[in-house]
């Protein structure tokens, strides 16, 4: 999948030449080296990191809330990030000039902040509401609220700023520098370490809070760690790549069905791999049809994600946490 992703793009490069570039030998066209290393390679790596991270975040949310349809975006995390980013990109029009020259780092920070603050609100509400369905409705309401603020900002902002924001919301896996990739990689590694470290708590959580506590799990700190890891993953990926839909929701279910297991010790790495593969697939699919024209990645993930979610709901009896 990685190789396929590398070999497809708007400039046609034979697969053999790609291998040559990768192994440092001479190719027919010197610009190919540039394209493969600095464009396609970064993009493929972004796919792997973003897909894996989002899928992991989705898995953690589904287990934490014991709800098969939970995901970072359902609970308003991505909306929070969107709001924060839109405030940065389009805030000038509303007289709010938070940061004059938004660089990639400020976007990461701001998106993570938006993500974390929405999550903290959700967590506070989660303490009051023990019913997961009401919690999901609250999450959707927060999403609706933030998107209306974003609409207002869009209405009053300049066309150029709005377009920057709109393109951000389409989701993009390309154009990341190696430094940004490194940040994403660190985030994914940290998130995965926390998640693997929490595998025991996540497993025990499948039985509910009371059982988890009777098994000696410190659910307060476990919950905080899981939320921290999820916010970190979702926040930074959303900041770099925009709000990518459905990967976080669909991949955990697919992996569970394939593995036939709910043990998080196996699920965590499997979901990261599954997310990476599906993301690479979606990105490849986004380039395939026109070969020159590239579709926004969100269109493709939703196209694949939506049928999966429908199928999950239809077969709900077979779906487990």
């Amino acid at each position, binding site marked *: 999948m990685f190789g396929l992703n590398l070999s497809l793009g708007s400039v046609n490069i034979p697969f053999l030449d790609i291998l040559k570039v990768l192994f440092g030998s001479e190719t027919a066209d010197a610009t190919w080296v540039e394209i493969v290393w600095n464009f396609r390679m970064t993009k493929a790596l972004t796919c792997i990191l973003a897909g894996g991270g989002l899928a992991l975040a989705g898995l953690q949310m589904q287990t934490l809330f014991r709800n098969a349809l939970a995901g970072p975006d359902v609970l308003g995390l991505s909306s929070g990030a969107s709001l924060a980013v839109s405030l940065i990109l389009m805030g000038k029009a509303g007289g709010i000039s938070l940061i004059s020259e938004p660089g990639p780092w400020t976007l990461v920070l701001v998106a993570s902040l938006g993500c974390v603050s929405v999550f903290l609100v959700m967590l506070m509400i989660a303490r009051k509401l023990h019913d997961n369905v009401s919690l999901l409705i609250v999450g959707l309401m927060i999403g609706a609220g933030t998107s209306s603020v974003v609409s207002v900002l869009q209405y009053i902002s300049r066309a150029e700023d709005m377009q920057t924001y709109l393109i951000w919301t389409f989701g993009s896996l390309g154009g990341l520098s190696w430094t940004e990739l490194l940040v994403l990689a660190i985030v994914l590694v940290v998130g995965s370490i926390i998640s*693997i*470290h*929490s*595998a*025991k708590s996540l*497993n*025990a959580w*499948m*039985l*509910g809070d*009371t*059982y988890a*506590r*009777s*098994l*000696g*799990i410190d659910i307060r700190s476990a919950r905080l760690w899981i939320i921290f890891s999820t916010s970190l993953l979702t926040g930074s990926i959303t900041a770099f790549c925009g709000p990518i839909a459905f990967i976080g929701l669909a991949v955990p279910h697919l992996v*569970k069905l394939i593995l*036939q*297991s*709910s*043990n998080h*010790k196996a699920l965590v790495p499997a979901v990261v791999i599954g997310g990476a593969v599906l993301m690479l697939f979606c990105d490849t699919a986004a380039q395939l049809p026109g070969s020159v024209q590239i579709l926004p990645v969100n269109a493709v993930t939703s196209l694949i994600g939506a049928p999966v979610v429908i199928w999950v709901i239809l077969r709900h*009896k077979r*779906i*487990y*946490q």
Partner: protein
Amino acid sequence: MSQDSDILLQGINLTVGYPNRDPLFADLNIALNAKELVCFMGPNGAGKSTLLRTLACLQQPLKGSVKLPSSAASSSISIVLTERISNVGLTVRELVTFGRYPFLDWRIQLSKMDHDRIDQSIAQVNIRHLADKKIFELSDGQLQMAMIARALAQDTPVILLDEPTAHLDLNNRVEVMKLLRQLARDTNRAVLVATHELDLALQLADVIWITGKQKNIVTGIPEDLVLNGTFDDAFQFKGFDLKSGKVEHARYQGKKIKLNGSGAEYLWSRNALERNGYQVVDDQADCHLAVISAQQWEVSGSEKIQTFNTLHDVLQFLNSI
């Protein structure tokens, strides 16, 4: 039976409930002894589940303390809740493995001893043939057995169960209760069961706890509590005579019948008569019914002797005269 060394759990001056509300129980002094099955009975809403959670150290008592013999932590008590957890993609074996979680670190690596305890627990509840089945494939009774096995694997001196027979049919209810009693005796544990199964509790419990009117708990062996009227006070039976163990029937037929016979045939013949409104007396009867065998009855009234092959026919004849 209850020397000090056998006490596995003690509630001292325990006041149980939720802050800022009337306590559910006040100043309880209760103890669980090794090898004893205790059935905890009382009407719904009396606070049985809350007391169970308090004894399991999952909820702070308002006053007083829960004393464990050793310096063991909260995980030294295992608990089986009413909450059903059927929508989880675990095998029975994985579920029972959760019982070992208090002994494991984040890597969840099972030692040989852990595996042995898991096998032993599964064997103790006679579900070895189900070990590799998924939980959602099990019947209610089988699932309850698996939950009990999980509690056993936790290797705790005390097991608390909240209505373990609630969703089960008669056969499974008897099986679960008999198993719990046998486990208490064979494995030197104290088992506390919150239950509504009056008939089973009376026949199987070593000790019964009944919620009293003054936020207290009356304890004693079943027979004493029946004879001194504690049960009648607590349950306010409507048309059920606990001392005879029978439902009181209205004697609407106004006829007295003398019944001769022995064994099960006698008991069920008597049941048939009383259920249909006849009064069974020793002398001065309107009619005489003799049980010859399970297929033959003789009715002798003022006139001739009549022979019948089923109780149904006997009743039809009696109703016609």
